[in-house]
């Protein structure tokens, strides 16, 4: 039985010649995962009822040439009656997605469910949660923390904590009692961490009124709503932590919701009736909602009642928006070296 996340990433639709399985895979980073995916598709097609298996690769790190090479090799080793019923489509634009249109009868359902699948949180995000927790402790000048407490605080398993420690072993040290702390965090470490966090699922909203509210105004309105589980992130959040930030105005409002991508976002309509849900690939959103799905958030409430996301989260939002110069400027001053 599929859980909710699996059913949102993989579903069945009716095609011209029979049932089709659509599988959305985000952030495919290596050949090992690709091969595993191909095998999964081949096994699924052993079921006589299934006609076609389509993998839609969103934000795939593998080049098309490499994908083709792998796919051709794979086709050479599987049964003839199966190999022509598997498709891999890299999707970066709407046009890319249209390549898959012909395999299903209900194209609208395909596009809607694809969009929904992009909101599902990737599986391997918790290592970044763990590192994010250590960064925040370092910024807050907090003492080292034992792995079990770090796991509890970040909502990660102990295995994930150790895996994160191993991934960033050049940055993390232990004190004499085995507690962990971030000893250093260089530019490359930041870039790696920021890139990973910036890739996390987000929901975008655009203005449809023709008279958009400014991000600053929207941040005031969210404060008036009195939500303690929604924080201001991105540029406006970073400006609070680092007032010297080299930017005059936020290009959009980043909000950080303490919850999963399945959280209720109906408050956005109350925030401003001109805001409407946009395609995840929208290039000029007015509001971007990010999610922090840990047991405890790192939000800070200022004297004027505004709730802000942590500085690392704000920097990740900015990194995702391409404000790399400004992020580097802040990092230069943080000097976690």
């Amino acid at each position: 039985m599929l859980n909710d996340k699996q059913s949102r990433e993989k579903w069945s639709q009716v095609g011209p010649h029979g049932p089709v399985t659509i599988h959305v895979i985000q952030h495919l980073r290596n050949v090992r995962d690709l091969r595993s995916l191909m095998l999964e598709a081949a096994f699924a097609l052993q079921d006589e009822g299934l006609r076609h298996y389509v993998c839609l690769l969103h934000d795939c790190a593998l080049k098309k040439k490499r994908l083709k090479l792998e796919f051709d090799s794979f086709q050479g080793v599987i049964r003839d009656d199966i190999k022509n019923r598997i498709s891999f489509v890299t999707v970066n634009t709407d046009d890319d997605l249209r390549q898959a249109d012909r395999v299903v009868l209900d194209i609208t359902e395909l596009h809607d469910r694809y969009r929904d699948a992009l909101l599902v949180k990737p599986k391997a995000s918790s290592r970044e949660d763990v590192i994010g927790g250590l960064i925040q402790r370092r910024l807050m000048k907090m003492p080292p923390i034992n792995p079990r407490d770090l796991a509890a605080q970040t909502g990660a398993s102990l295995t994930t904590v150790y895996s994160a420690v191993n991934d960033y072993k050049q940055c993390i040290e232990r004190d004499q009692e085995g507690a962990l702390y971030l000893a250093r965090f260089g530019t490359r470490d930041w870039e790696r961490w920021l890139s990973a966090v910036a890739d996390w699922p987000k929901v975008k909203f655009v203005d449809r009124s023709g008279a958009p509210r400014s991000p600053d105004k929207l941040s005031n309105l969210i404060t008036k709503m009195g939500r303690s589980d929604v924080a201001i992130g991105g540029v406006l959040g970073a400006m609070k932590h680092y007032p010297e930030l080299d930017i005059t105005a936020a290009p959009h409002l980043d909000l950080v919701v303490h919850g999963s991508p399945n959280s209720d976002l109906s408050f956005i309509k109350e925030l401003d009736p001109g805001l409407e849900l946009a395609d995840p690939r929208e290039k000029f959103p007015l509001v971007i909602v990010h999610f922090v799905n840990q047991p405890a958030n790192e939000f800070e409430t200022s004297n004027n009642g505004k709730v802000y996301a942590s500085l690392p989260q704000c920097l990740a939002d900015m990194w995702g928006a391409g404000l790399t110069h400004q992020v580097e400027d802040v990092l230069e001053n943080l000097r976690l070296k």
Partner: protein
Amino acid sequence: MNDYLAPHEVLASVADAIPVDLRKDIIIVGSLAAAYQLLRDDDQSVRTKDVDGMVAPHAKAVVAATNVTNSLIDSGWTPKVNEGFELPSDEQTDAKNLPVVRLQPPNNAGWFLELLGAPSAIAPDEHGALRTAQRIRAKASHFELPSFAYLGVVQYMPTESEYQLRIATPQMMALANLLHHPEIGVTRMGASISGRKIKRSNKDLGRVVAMAHLMDLLNEDALEAWPQLWRDALQMYAPRNAEELLKIAPSGLHALAESYEDLDEALHSVNQGLLSQRPLTSFAFEIALKRLLNIVG
């Protein structure tokens, strides 16, 4: 309705024909006032034929309106004849047959100035009527000076213009319209607007939304000041029932939001008038209404 009026040209023309000491008794209200306050670009104009001037305060409205009428007619302005009313009228003319003061400037039949009087109170009269009237005895004719109960709130902090004429603020015109239409009435306007007979309440409530939208474009924080300004004005002009009136004020907007047909009429009306140079889509108009309701409740 085909004519566009440039607020500054019209105000200059009215001011030119009235002695300086009489100008301060006039508060320009209606679409021209809204255009003056909200259409800030020099080349912006508004589609209207009537320029409404309220003579205030109530205590001297009749005397001041008489003087203004005499002064304009002496300057060559001509009374506009309305079907069914007697012009010129005199002492023998029954009050119900008196024409209102509608004066066209010399050599320009494109628009007219209509005079109103400040009401004695921000409330219906003892018979529940929202419209009352007084007789003015000008040299050329007797006229009727009508007053609308809630329009009196425009006396609260009008803008002092460079023409020595005062201009009602959008916030107070909005409040007057809202108090006048706590629900969508069935009465339709006599004249059609681009081929459609519009309910009076839809026209007035639509203008409230349009003014809110235009003010929002000028300053996205401005609408938030409306509730307090309304409270201040009502405490000054209707202190005994200020809170009750404040509670009633948004009712008409709620009624408008619930009826597609009325919303459509309201939009048609403002797109032919105040927003004629930058018309809104029905979607954008609905958002402007919702934004306003988010603030005024």
